[in-house]
């Protein structure tokens, strides 16, 4: 049996039904652990003071925000090539999650920026790219909402995801050339010298895993909702014909 079999809506419902409670519990627990650890049991940074605690939300949400879009792009490609309904609906389901994660990264960043840089908002390339990403999410969600035939909507949003990805990457480079940034470099790079201290590193990794689990849980849950919505639609249409 090929892996694509799981992309059949019925199978997906059956499987996800079994997995979801465990996933949900796990992500809730891990999230709790990570945030409690980060908030209560980490020291202040010598330069940033207690604001460094924001990192445990800010960085994971920023990572999810980007990777959610990548996931949507892949799911869209799968839909276009293999026409598996579940992957189209998963892309649809991921968009609001990605948008909220983007918003969290933006908001926590803004709240961090006010004490650190003295401004809520600066047109730093990192921040700018995030704002643009947020716009892409909005457009994508709006396009889904505007078309009422679900297959047409899936096709068109997939095309948008592809073209949008190309231009999102372009925007990122455009923003880099446009303005030199204030923003931190990578703190999780392989180069140990640039690493954040271990006291921050381990809770941060925990938080990242927790956010990933949360993302997966939410996407599965929302995909289930979308599948149900589709089935409801189909059943109602069938009734209407009788």
């Amino acid at each position, binding site marked *: 049996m090929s892996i694509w079999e799981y992309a059949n809506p*019925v199978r997906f419902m059956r499987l996800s039904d079994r997995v979801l409670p465990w996933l949900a519990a796990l992500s809730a627990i891990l999230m709790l652990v990570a945030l409690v650890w980060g908030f209560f049991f980490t020291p202040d940074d010598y330069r940033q003071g207690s604001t460094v605690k924001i990192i445990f939300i800010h960085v994971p949400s920023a990572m999810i925000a980007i990777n959610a879009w990548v996931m949507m792009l892949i799911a869209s490609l799968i839909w276009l090539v293999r026409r598996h*309904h579940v992957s189209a609906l998963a892309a649809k389901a991921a968009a609001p999650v990605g948008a909220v994660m983007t918003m969290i990264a933006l908001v926590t960043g803004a709240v961090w920026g006010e004490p650190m840089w003295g401004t809520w908002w600066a047109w730093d390339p990192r921040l700018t790219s995030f704002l643009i990403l947020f716009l892409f999410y909005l457009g994508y969600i709006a396009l889904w909402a505007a078309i009422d035939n679900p297959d047409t909507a899936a096709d068109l949003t997939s095309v948008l995801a592809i073209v949008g990805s190309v231009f999102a990457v372009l925007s990122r480079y455009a923003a880099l050339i446009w303005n030199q940034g204030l923003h931190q470099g990578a703190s999780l790079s392989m180069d140990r010298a640039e690493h954040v201290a271990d006291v921050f590193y381990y809770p941060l990794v925990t938080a990242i895993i927790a956010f990933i689990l949360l993302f997966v849980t939410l996407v599965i849950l929302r995909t289930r909702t979308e599948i149900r919505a589709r089935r409801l639609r189909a059943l109602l*249409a069938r009734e209407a014909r009788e």
Partner: protein
Amino acid sequence: MNAIELAPYRDAAPLEVRDLACRRGERLILEGVSFTVSPGRALILRAPNGAGKTTLLRAIARLTPPVRGTVSLSPERMTWFGHADGVKAQLTVAENLRFWAAVHGMQDITPALEAFRLADLADRPAAYLSAGQRRRLGLARLLVARRPVWLLDEPTVSLDAATVATFAGVVGAHLAAGGLALIATHIPLGLAEEDVLDVTPFRARESAEHAHDPFLDAGFATARDGREEVSR
């Protein structure tokens, strides 16, 4: 109303439709539609409103790809004429027609103008036409496209009796030249070469509709039951 004559079409071939199933939006409307129209014949699609005539014509033109089944001729040999007639109000009658002629690689629009008695109106902007005159202009496009298969969706809407006769003459000439036509209409055209197909019997059965929607899979109900068992 002089009879017109068209140059014969070079590659006459019958239009064979086999087991076509077609949808509109998400709904399967027709299924199992099969028929053959040979060159020189017209097939009139008859059915009450909402039966699926437009849907069938769009599927044959591949504007809405059919769900299943085959159509023997490629859309490149067809001209489509729908409820909306593609007339631009800002352009004059002649400009409208000349555009479609150019798209299809034709030069001369006078025969088309004359066939539909539009020569007098040639320089009038299409915005200033009456409903019937405008429809005539839309129909004239058929003659500049020079395609052997005509798909016509209620072509005679708004036309007066004399113009319906003129139009029947044009269709007759098209058939005489080896073309063929599919015409959805509620108004009899009175062609000599016409067959009639009622599409009502092809209305999609419910079960057929299910067969193609993964979201109507019976497995869903089971899946739900399964969960209930677990939760109990």
